[in-house]
C-alpha cells in the first residue's frame, strides 16, 4: 500500500482486516465444500486449447463470459441445468447413505416430509444455506432452521464426515442458540465427537449424554458411536 503512515488509520485497517477474515472453522468448512465438489463432479480443467486465430479466441471467450453472466458460465456443470444428465449424478456432493432398515431412533425430526432431492450440487448449497442463514425471527422459523440443519448434520455423519457435522453444529448453535431440539443436538454432537475420535481420555461422552437424557431414544445410537453399547443389550436390538 502506498503512502499510508497514519498509525490510527493503519490500526483501524489492520483490525478491519482481521474482522473480515474467515475464522478457522469457516476456512475448514469451505475447504471441505470445495474438495467435495471437486471430488464428485466438477469437470477437470480443460486440456490446453490448440492454437487458433485471435479472432476465434475472442469470439469464444466472449461467448463463454456471456454464458457465465446468464448463469451457465465457468461452473455450468454445477448449476441447476447441468450440461448432461450424467453430470447430475456425478456432481452430487454429499451422497445420502441408504437408511438403515432398522427402527433405530432417527435424529431427523419427523415433521416435514423430505422432498425429492434437488440436483446434486444443490444438496450442498441447501445444506450450507440452512446453517448459514441469519438468525430466525420467530420460534417457528427457529424450529424450521433447526430441522433443516439437523437433517444436514445427520447426513454429514452418515457420510462419515464428523468434522463437517461439528462445523454445522457450531453454525446451528450460533444461528439458533439453545433452540427447541437440544437433545437432538447433544446426541449429534456426541456422536460426531466419538466418530472423530475426540473422546477425552477417562471421560465417557456417551455416559455424559445418558446422564443428561436418561430416557433418550438416541441413547443406543450414541453408545454405539462411542463404543459403549455393550452395556446395553436392549438398545442394540433396537438399532439393528
Amino acid at each position, binding site marked *: 500500500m502506498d503512502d499510508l503512515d497514519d498509525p490510527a488509520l493503519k490500526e483501524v485497517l489492520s483490525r478491519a*482486516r*482481521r474482522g473480515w477474515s*474467515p475464522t478457522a472453522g469457516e476456512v475448514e468448512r*469451505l475447504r471441505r465444500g470445495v474438495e467435495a465438489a471437486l471430488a464428485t463432479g466438477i469437470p477437470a480443467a480443460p486440456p490446453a486449447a490448440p492454437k487458433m486465430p485471435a479472432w476465434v479466441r475472442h469470439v469464444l471467450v466472449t461467448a463463454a463470459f456471456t454464458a457465465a453472466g446468464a448463469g451457465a458460465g465457468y461452473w455450468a456443470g454445477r448449476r441447476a441445468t447441468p450440461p448432461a444428465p450424467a453430470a447430475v449424478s456425478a456432481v452430487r456432493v454429499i451422497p445420502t447413505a441408504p437408511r438403515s432398515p432398522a427402527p433405530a431412533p432417527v435424529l431427523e425430526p419427523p415433521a416435514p416430509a423430505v422432498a425429492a432431492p434437488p440436483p446434486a450440487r444443490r444438496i450442498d*448449497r441447501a445444506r450450507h444455506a440452512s446453517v*448459514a442463514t441469519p438468525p430466525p425471527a420467530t420460534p417457528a422459523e427457529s424450529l424450521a432452521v433447526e430441522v433443516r440443519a439437523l437433517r444436514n448434520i445427520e447426513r454429514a455423519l452418515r457420510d462419515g464426515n464428523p468434522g463437517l457435522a461439528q462445523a454445522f453444529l457450531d453454525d446451528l448453535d*450460533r444461528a439458533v442458540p439453545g433452540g427447541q431440539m437440544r437433545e437432538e443436538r447433544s446426541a449429534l454432537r456426541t456422536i460426531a465427537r466419538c466418530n472423530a475420535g475426540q473422546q477425552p481420555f477417562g471421560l465417557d461422552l456417551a455416559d455424559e449424554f445418558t446422564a443428561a437424557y436418561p430416557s433418550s431414544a438416541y441413547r443406543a445410537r450414541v453408545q454405539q458411536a462411542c463404543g459403549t453399547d455393550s452395556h446395553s443389550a436392549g438398545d442394540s436390538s433396537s438399532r439393528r
Partner: protein
Amino acid sequence: MKLVHPDPPSDTDQPDGRFGAVYAEHVGFVWRCLRGLGIPSAGLDDAAQDVFLAVHRQLPGFRGEASLRTWLYAITRHVAANHRRRDRRKGSALTPLQPELPSLVDPQPGPLERAADAQAAAFVERFLAKLDTKKREVFLLAFVEEMTIPEVAAALSIPLNTAYTRFRRVRAAFQRALERRTHG
C-alpha cells in the same frame, strides 16, 4: 507470485498440489474481497466456493502474466457480480455491505480484541457502503489488502494515473471519516 504450500499437499489436494497452495495462501484474500464487494455473510460460503472452483478450472492456464492476486481478484469480482445479480433476480433482501459481527468460533484473540476488530470492520463497511463501486474497489485493494497502486491498476484494468487519483480521493475521505469517528 511464487506458490509455496506451507505443508505437503494432502491427498485431497491431489492431483493438483498447486491449487491447495493457492487455497491455503489466498482464502482470506478471496473471503475479504467478497465481503468488500457486498456479499453478505450468509452467501460467503457459496460465493467463495464458486471462486475456488473457477480457480481450480483455470489455474492450469495461469501462466503468471499477471500477479496471482490480480488474477484471483478478477475471478472474485466476476463471481461477486454474478451473486449480486442472482440475488437481485431472486428478490432477496440482500443488503450489501451491511455491517455484521464476525462469528465467535475462533478463540484465538481475546474478547476485547475481537470486539475492537468487529467495531473496526463495521466502521470500514459503513465507509465502503458510501463509496461508489470504482472507489470501493480501490479502497478494498489498496487499503484493506495492501496492494500497491500499480497492482490495483492492473487488477482493475485502469490507467495508473486513474488509480492514483482514486486512491488519493479515497484516502482523504477515509481520513475524514476516521477523524469524525475519533472526535465525534
